[in-house]
């Protein structure tokens, strides 16, 4: 029983990381339909923001707390700049968007190598997050619990913004019918930029969280980008709850399979399961039904 609970917690913590890295994509890819291959580099920017802050703030706890909003702003600004410079000209050309953003991701990786060097760097986690706690015989790593809480907080905040605020209504309206939004008085270009800012900013927050579980390097984003896209596609694009459920389901599946096989075999089985699932349900886990096509 303890083994099952331990593996379940490991799965949930993997799911929390998946959710955090995929949240930004639920906006930029799920809502706007932009295949942004540089999303992983916004994760990297968030991680390096944490690293730079730790050099100037000695307290690891304070630097982590400052890093969360600052990484959101840094990665968000990078995303808004990318949208303004390139992506807004390519909204009707998804394949070009993919190629262009892939090029941008390579440039950003090289920039990180030039500034911080090619080897990976490390940050120090606050003392509070370095230990473990034991609940009913299950060992819970504090850093994993922190990431779980952060992922759920970000998902909840994003849900509330999309559902209850004027900005959320505008974002959803522009996604559903751009022309109608424009003739309803909404400045759609500004909404696009804001959406991209928030989506990219969330990648920055994910970057901060990832410094607690691994090293920081120029290619760290590429390690996560495929998983992030998988979560959004399987969850059903334009559906945040689909991404939440998928992230945790994939995390637990991965963890259970890793226990009974190996890491590589588990990864292969998860990917095969995803392919089979998408054959059966290409639209993903959740879709929205309407009475007509409009």
């Amino acid at each position, binding site marked *: 029983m303890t083994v099952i609970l331990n593996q379940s917690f490991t799965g949930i913590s993997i799911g929390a990381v998946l959710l955090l890295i995929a949240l930004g994509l639920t906006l930029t890819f799920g809502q706007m339909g932009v295949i942004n291959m540089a999303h992983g580099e916004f994760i990297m920017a968030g991680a390096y923001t944490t690293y730079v802050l730790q050099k100037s703030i000695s307290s690891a706890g304070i630097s982590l707390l400052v890093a969360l909003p600052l990484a959101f702003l840094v990665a968000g600004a990078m995303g808004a700049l990318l949208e303004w410079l390139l992506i807004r000209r390519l909204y009707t050309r998804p394949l070009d968007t993919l190629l262009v953003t892939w090029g941008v991701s390579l440039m950003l990786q090289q920039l990180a190598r030039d500034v911080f060097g090619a080897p990976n760097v490390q940050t120090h986690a606050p003392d509070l997050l370095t230990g473990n706690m034991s609940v009913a015989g299950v060992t819970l790593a504090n850093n994993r619990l922190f990431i779980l809480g952060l992922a759920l907080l970000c998902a909840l905040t994003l849900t509330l913004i999309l559902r209850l605020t*004027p900005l959320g*209504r*505008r974002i*959803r*309206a522009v996604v*559903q*019918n751009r*022309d*109608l*939004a*424009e*003739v*309803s*008085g*909404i*400045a*759609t270009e500004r909404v696009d930029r804001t959406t991209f800012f928030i989506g990219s900013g969330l990648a920055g927050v994910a970057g901060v969280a990832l410094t607690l579980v691994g090293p920081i390097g120029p290619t760290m984003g590429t390690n996560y980008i495929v998983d992030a896209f998988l979560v959004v596609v399987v969850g059903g694009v*334009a559906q945040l709850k689909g991404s939440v459920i998928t992230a945790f389901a994939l995390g637990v599946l991965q963890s259970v399979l890793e226990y009974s096989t190996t890491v590589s075999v588990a990864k292969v089985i998860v990917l095969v399961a995803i392919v089979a699932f998408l054959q059966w349900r290409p639209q993903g886990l959740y879709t*929205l*039904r*309407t*009475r*007509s096509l*409009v």
Partner: protein
Amino acid sequence: MLEINSVQAGYDRTTVLHDVTVSVPEDGVAAVLGHNGAGKSTLLRVAMGLLKPKSGTILLNGEDITSLAPNQRVARGMAYVPQGQQSFPHLTTAENLQLVADGRPDGSKAMVEALDLFPVLRELSSRRAGLLSGGQRQQLAIARALITRPRLLLLDEPTEGIQPSVVAEIEETILALSRRGGLSVLLVEQHVGFAMRAGQQYYVLEAGRVTSSGAGGVGSEQTVRAALSV
């Protein structure tokens, strides 16, 4: 109020409108009639800024708005109800209206007034717009346009594909709004009777050209029918 002068417009290399001139009188209704493919909807898309004309100008109260974006035209008092009962299908009825009311000083009041015009929308406020009937969606579309408190309303076939009882309600609302004053309307309509009852001015479009125009009113109905049957 609105002057569309010598406009030529189309899609890619295809020209749909050829040297079209249409004007909407202050506090009046101009009706544009024509068969399918005549260019009526394209004319409204050009007027609203969704399609840039290849040549010609569009003046709103004397101001050249040809190069303005649609949302800038809305800020200057224009509103548009496109063809096909369009809505934001995954937003609720209330959200469809609130979206437009957001950020407007009198948005809440305008929303209440719009709901008073179409009370059925109040009962459906929590239902997603994509689940409404065609008639309900058209009422929602008109209500959404009215929340911006427009001085000029562009209506693209507001009664198309809607059951007769709802058509009568929509027609009555549009006629009442135009009679109330303070609102000019550019109405694209295939239903000649309604168009001529509403319009003080009419234009017949054929293959992207204005082939007939004149004073509206029920008395002109036969003239328009004759022009349309050519």
